[in-house]
């Protein structure tokens, strides 16, 4: 037993070690402008930290990402509920949701720059790319409800509020978390891309600056931060999900 725990804990670390070695080998072969070494990347990261640029940019990025993400959950959940519960509303809104979903991000980005001015672009882009995910998942959650449970509640004359809060909401919760997990993954990618093209502050903007100055190590450092951001928020979400869904485990 002890051995297998050691193995299961050690394997990912071993994988990371291989990655670092491969990275270092590539860095030895190429110019630092093409592939900076792990050490150079670490130095760039430290520089960002010491000069305070890291917090300035990353703080803004996090605020924008969470803002857009929160908007999509806060607006998408009731819209999804309404669409799932009411066939007329659903038929009315379905084409719009699908259209929003298939419209390329770059189109939203350009349109947002024209419509809102530059600083609101990342928030809008995150919102518009994640809200269809939330809506569609919530509808699916409602569709998959056991109709016998709803009939049971109605037979026992349970009021509408309890039906919503104690039957529909718990039913859609796992679907909402699944949507939020995918949406968070999209959030940090979308926010950085929007910042790259539209703003002067934020991780994306920092990458833009680094690209102009040919500071590839700094591009690597920003990327590293985005990955950490994605991993941390996903872990946090999973933790909350586990706390809320005790009924599914023993």
């Amino acid at each position: 037993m002890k051995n297998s725990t050691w193995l299961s804990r050690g394997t990912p670390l071993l994988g990371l070690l291989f990655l670092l070695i491969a990275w270092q080998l590539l860095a030895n072969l190429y110019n630092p402008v093409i592939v900076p070494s792990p050490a150079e990347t670490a130095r760039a990261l430290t520089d960002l930290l010491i000069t305070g640029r890291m917090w300035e940019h990353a703080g803004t990025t996090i605020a924008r990402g969470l803002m857009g993400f929160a908007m999509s959950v806060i607006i998408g959940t009731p819209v999804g509920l309404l669409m799932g519960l009411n066939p007329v509303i659903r038929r009315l809104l379905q084409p719009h949701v699908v259209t929003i979903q298939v419209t390329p991000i770059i189109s939203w980005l350009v349109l947002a720059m024209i419509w809102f001015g530059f600083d609101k672009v990342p928030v809008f882009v995150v919102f518009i790319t994640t809200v269809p995910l939330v809506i569609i998942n919530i509808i699916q959650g409602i569709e998959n409800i056991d109709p016998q449970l709803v009939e049971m509640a109605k037979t026992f004359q349970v009021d509408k509020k309890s039906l919503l809060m104690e039957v529909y909401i718990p039913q859609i919760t796992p679907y909402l978390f699944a949507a939020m997990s995918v949406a968070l993954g999209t959030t940090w990618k979308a926010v950085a891309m929007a910042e790259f093209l539209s703003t002067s502050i934020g991780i994306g903007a920092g990458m833009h600056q680094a690209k102009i100055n040919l500071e590839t190590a700094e591009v690597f450092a920003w990327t590293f931060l985005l990955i950490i951001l994605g991993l941390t928020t996903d872990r946090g979400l999973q933790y909350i999900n586990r706390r809320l869904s005790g009924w599914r485990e023993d």
Partner: protein
Amino acid sequence: MIVLKKVNKSLGGIKVLQNLSFTVERGKITCILGPSGCGKTTTLQMLAGLEKPDSGTIEGLSGVQISYAFQEPRLLPWKTVEDNLHFVLKGPIPMPERQKVIDRYLKLMGLSAYKNYYPRALSGGMKQRLSLCRAFAFPHQLLLMDEPFKSLDAPLRLTMIKEVTKMWDINKNTIVFITHDVPEALLLGHKLLVYSAKPASVQKELTIDIPHGQRDLGSKKLAAMYGQLISLLEKEY
């Protein structure tokens, strides 16, 4: 007393019930026996007010509070044993009393120790017992039971029948119990209505006045009834 007179009902163009007439007596268990898919559940749905007869009348239902035991347990998986009961009882019973009612019924069904368990941790029989708890605890003048033990194996079924008679001995409530299982009807019913095949009407009515505790399927009277009921039902297939 609930009286059905010449009730006719078609569903999807198929005649399900034809000139159905019977009475449900207060404080008794009425068992409806019949082949599968003959309109037993439709009868129950009409008693519950979920379906209306095409013609004919049902009297004695106005203002009657109804409780229901389903074929399946139909428990909310995200609520504990206790909270599944709170969910349906919080409308009709206010709080300090509700907890007492819940505790009493959980104790009667031997589920007190499991009140904080989620349904997924319960066995099939325990889930069905909780579903019975819900049906009995929900304030009612009429309890409709739609083959609630259909999916249970024979020994568990017998245990559950005992649970129902135990509850009935305490509450003396009016029950309409649907089944296609002859022994179940013999052990539970005061009045047995045998349905014909579709379109259904009552082809035979039997009464059993032996108290539940003294019913023995091996006894001469019940064995004779068993034979009679089986041959009536066989005829309908």
